[in-house]
């Protein structure tokens, strides 16, 4: 059963140095507050897994938390490069960063295989793509009926999944809605799971019978962190802060300005700093 705890306790309890950690959220519901807490607690030697290592992983990488990155698209969505990610790969700053690179389809399938407790995933993919030449974790499997050769990759089985969700009920069941990405799979594929939520409610009320709900017993810790996805968004709560994504380009381009920003906005803050972003969105219907 999930325990309600502070984000500080959840990170202290669930994430250790050297862990394989998947912070997921596909554009929507990215667990920024949790990422900041990991930085504040100075976790080291992490293997970070994420389809789209955008700002949240740029920050973790730039602060030296990661030894390795498993990913499929590393950019600032709609804006351009991730400068800390590039600086780590191109210049080994602040430390070298190993990478294991896949395609989106491969990562999505590998999470799915992890949730399904399979050792590997398969797909019709990587045809004519050079990534299979540089990643030894891209192999093949042959259909025992047709002889067709398919691409294969190991299932993703992280030590810890970290996601942000809309709300929890008092039992610690968690509701997601909207763009749910690979979060459900990431939680089910992981040994432990931290879920930050916008709020706790007595009941989810009348939901669709097929609502995306993670039962309490699939989760280790639930932490109430309103606004905790900012500058990502929480559908029905607040919109994506596209202007921050644009601003991040300048903040992160330079090592000093990056460190200054991180000191002021992360190291000297706590999870409660996110609450200011938790206002209802103008452009988004409440669900």
């Amino acid at each position, binding site marked *: 059963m999930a325990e309600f705890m502070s984000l500080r306790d959840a990170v202290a309890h669930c994430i250790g140095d050297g862990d394989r950690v998947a912070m997921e959220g596909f554009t929507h519901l990215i667990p920024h507050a949790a990422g900041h807490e990991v930085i504040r607690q100075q976790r080291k030697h992490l293997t970070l897994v994420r389809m789209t290592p955008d700002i949240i992983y740029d920050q973790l990488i730039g602060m030296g938390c990661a030894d390795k990155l498993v990913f499929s698209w590393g950019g600032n969505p709609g804006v351009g490069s991730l400068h800390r990610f590039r600086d780590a790969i191109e210049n080994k700053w602040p430390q070298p960063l190993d990478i294991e690179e896949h395609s989106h389809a491969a990562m999505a399938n590998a999470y799915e295989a992890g949730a399904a407790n399979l050792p590997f995933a398969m797909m019709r993919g990587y045809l004519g793509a050079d990534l299979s030449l540089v990643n030894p974790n891209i192999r093949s499997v042959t259909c025992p009926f047709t002889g067709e050769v398919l691409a294969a990759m190991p299932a993703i089985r992280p030590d810890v999944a970290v996601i942000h969700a809309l709300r929890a009920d008092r039992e610690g069941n968690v509701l997601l809605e*909207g763009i*749910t990405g690979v979060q459900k799979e990431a939680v089910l594929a992981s040994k432990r799971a931290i879920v930050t939520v916008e709020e706790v409610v007595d009941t989810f009320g009348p939901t669709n019978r097929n609502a*995306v709900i993670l039962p309490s017993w699939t989760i280790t810790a639930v932490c109430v962190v309103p606004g905790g996805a900012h500058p990502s968004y929480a559908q029905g709560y607040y919109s994506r802060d596209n202007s921050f994504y644009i601003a991040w380009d300048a903040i992160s381009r330079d090592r000093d300005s990056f460190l200054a920003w991180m000191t002021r906005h992360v190291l000297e803050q706590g999870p409660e700093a996110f609450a200011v972003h938790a206002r209802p969105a103008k452009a988004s219907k409440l669900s």
Partner: protein
Amino acid sequence: MSAATANHTPTEMMTIAAARALRNEDVCFVGIGAPSAACNLARLTHAPNITLIYESGTIATRPTVLPLSIGDGELCDTALTTVSVPEMFRYWLQGGRISVGFLGGAQIDRFANLNTTVVGAYDAPKVRLPGGGGAPEIASNCQEIFIIMAQSKRAFVDRLDFITSMGHGRTGVERRAMGIKTKGPTRLITDMAIYAPDPETCEMSVVSIHPGISRSQIEDSLGWPVRYAAEVVETPSPTHDELEVLRDMQARTRQAHQQS
């Protein structure tokens, strides 16, 4: 349709030419940026029932403003429904249900292979690009691929350091040789011209030149000796309608993205 106009930028011509390539009955897997602009322009002009799918899971979405990211809330709010990302890649893309995949890239070669991974060696890159994302499987699983990219010698190169997603293959024969049943890149739309694969060699060849663009301009912004199809036409100028709808959409978008 209103009368044609010459008062437009090369990027506008590119977007409009790309939009025109889409059909009302297409199911389109949309990349962010220029592909997204072209697909939504098509939807707001001649193809009102086109189905737009973004890899974030949003199916049949009808955004009012262009998304900055592949998963802006606007896409979900205006979608028929939204599925998980594994389902998107398994049932919808790999499932063979997409008629047109719309891609851009950092670099392209004459056989419409794309590189969005690295410039230089993979292990010691000069420039580390974002990586493939959905492109490798979009390239092979959609029934055909449209590519939209502004021409430059840096982007249109003689030889790619890395093939992120296969077009027709390193020498134009690999795709066919592998027995892939989908068509691959059937159209490359730039700010200067429209290209289609040569029926024999699969080399992308100019089939239409945008108004006001000369052959030498095209040739000067490419890293290979350009080929022309047997018949080359002039791309019709943007109509007033097309330009107005495009500009309105981009004004709405700029305004929306400045809000936090």
